[in-house]
């Protein structure tokens, strides 16, 4: 199908996502309107005030209340969205599990930023990596365009009857959220056709068919079975995420997968990375390839559910894999992405070496040189006969 290319706009990442939300035009947006909230909610409030959307916009007194109101709205039968970041995400914590276990197809934008302390408002992935076991689907975008695209695809994924789980989609705080970059938008009609009309399942506001949502389920109840059902929905989500991406590609010309490999086919060393740093890494892969180094990269797009089979297939032939985490799991063997990748490659024979790199915490910049240094360590490990230490490597850590 021929795709006509729309004009390129110069927008911030937050503007891109607010526009996506406006085109989705959900029934309800519940959000906390004050810092650590991002500009997304402010821009959306403006759209509501200007009559550009038909959304009922509910401001609340905390992020805990924001997620609680989202749950109430979604359980009531409304297509519901929200946005958050950093400490706000942390304050939502206990209710995030509730949204997932009620199987509410909410879509939430989370701008990835550090958690206190010391107080720091800058980019890293500590907030949502900490929320990986809440039962939400997690999509990590690389740039302005993908932040917009993932927001729209999130609706289809969350609401699919094989899934019915909340989706959070992320992009890097400031690096993308506050920076000006290029964006091509679909029309509102295209987005509306793609997301389709909302289908509420067992809505509480259907008074002719009364239902109870979230009652006490005691020692002899079905809590365990309920959790297994959530996990089965996660398994089914792989296909739904890919199908939504393929259908979206027909519309936009932009293709997305569960993961995003680059020059990996014959790679001997490779880096796994999440978010905007993938762009810088690709540039270094090209530079190394020009020098004859068989370097490759793969970007994590979907982190929950984690496409472990696809990663094993993509990386099984690589000698040494470096995993770059922009969050740490203190006292664990490495960061959260490292542990997933290492586990995914355990059954490969021969088994690639997997080395942990931590970078960019609290917004510490990650320069091309730092990524080249990481590749140099991988090269050295690939050349040596023994297996390299799996201790953490820190990129651009101050020595003074």
């Amino acid at each position: 199908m021929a795709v006509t290319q729309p004009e390129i706009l110069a927008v911030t990442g937050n503007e891109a996502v607010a526009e996506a939300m406006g085109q989705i035009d959900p029934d309800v947006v519940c959000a906390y309107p004050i810092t650590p909230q991002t500009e997304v909610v402010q821009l959306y409030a403006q759209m509501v005030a200007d009559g550009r959307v038909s959304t009922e916009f509910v401001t609340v007194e905390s992020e805990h209340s924001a997620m609680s109101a989202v749950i109430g709205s979604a359980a009531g039968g409304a297509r519901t969205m929200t946005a958050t970041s950093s400490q706000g995400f942390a304050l939502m914590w206990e209710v995030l599990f509730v949204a997932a276990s009620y199987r509410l197809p909410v879509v939430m934008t989370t701008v990835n930023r550090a958690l206190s302390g010391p107080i720091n408002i800058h980019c890293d992935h500590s907030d949502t990596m900490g929320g990986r076991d809440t039962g939400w689907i997690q999509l990590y975008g690389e740039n302005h365009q993908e932040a917009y695209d993932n927001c729209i695809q999130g609706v289809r994924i969350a609401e699919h009857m094989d899934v019915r789980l909340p989706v959070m989609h992320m992009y890097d705080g400031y690096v993308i959220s506050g920076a000006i970059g290029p964006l091509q938008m679909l029309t509102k009609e295209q987005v509306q056709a793609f997301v389709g009309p909302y289908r509420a399942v067992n809505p509480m506001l259907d008074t002719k068919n009364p239902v109870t949502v979230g009652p006490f389920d005691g020692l002899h109840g079905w809590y365990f079975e309920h959790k297994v059902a959530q996990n089965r929905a996660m398994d089914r989500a792989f296909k739904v995420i890919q199908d939504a991406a393929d259908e979206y590609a027909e519309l936009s010309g932009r293709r997305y997968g569960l993961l995003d490999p680059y020059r990996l086919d014959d790679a001997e060393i490779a880096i796994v990375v999440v978010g905007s740093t993938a762009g810088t890494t690709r540039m270094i892969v090209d530079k190394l390839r020009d020098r004859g180094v068989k370097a490759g990269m793969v970007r994590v797009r979907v982190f929950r559910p984690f496409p472990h089979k696809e990663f094993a297939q993509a990386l099984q032939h690589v000698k040494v894999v470096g995993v770059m985490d922009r969050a740490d799991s203190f006292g664990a063997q490495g960061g959260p992405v490292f542990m997933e990748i290492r586990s995914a490659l355990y059954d490969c024979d021969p088994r690639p070496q997997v080395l942990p790199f931590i970078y960019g915490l609290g917004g510490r910049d990650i320069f091309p040189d730092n990524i080249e240094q990481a590749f140099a360590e991988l090269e050295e490990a690939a050349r040596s006969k023994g297996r390299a230490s799996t201790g953490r490597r820190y990129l651009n850590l101050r020595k003074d």
Partner: protein
Amino acid sequence: MTTKSGTQKVEAPPALTEIRWHGRGGQGAVTAAKLVAELALGQGKFFQAFPEYGPERSGAPIVAFTRVSDAPIQVYSGVEHPQIVVVLDPSLLSIVNVTAGAPDDAIVLVNSEMSPAELRRHYGLEGFAYYTVAATRIAVETIKRPIPNTPMVGALTRITGLFPIDDVVAFLREDFGKKFPPKVVEGNIAAITRSYEEVQAE
């Protein structure tokens, strides 16, 4: 593995232009960085503009970056080796190393009443290619506010040749025309065209 800014030559391909803006909070450095990105878009080029984030305090030194390229821009780190440095407040020359990491042939455009030669003598500046323009005075006389950002873009247009001045004027007339009253738009256009004419080379 610390990356320290050095003085090595830029390794980026020539199609990529990297600009670093030094200003003080309230002088519109971030707005100027974004304006250049939008002008690049108008030329069919790829672009990126972002500030070095921190608490926004009026008068405090701030840094912003613009990248302009013929190809999609993938790098997302701060600019380490700017080919062009724009200094919106000359007093920063005494307190910030504005040319840190810049290659030897970098262009440094400074908002100052002095000529480049006077500026060099006054601040003891060596190397690089300095240009000056009295952007604050031009802003006061045209926009009626001491915000030097748009005049600096006019001077930048002249010395870099990134965009034809006619395109810059046309963009301002259309884009600012949507946001500001005609008096403000014409003031900004006058500021840009005057600084385009008045920028001094060595």
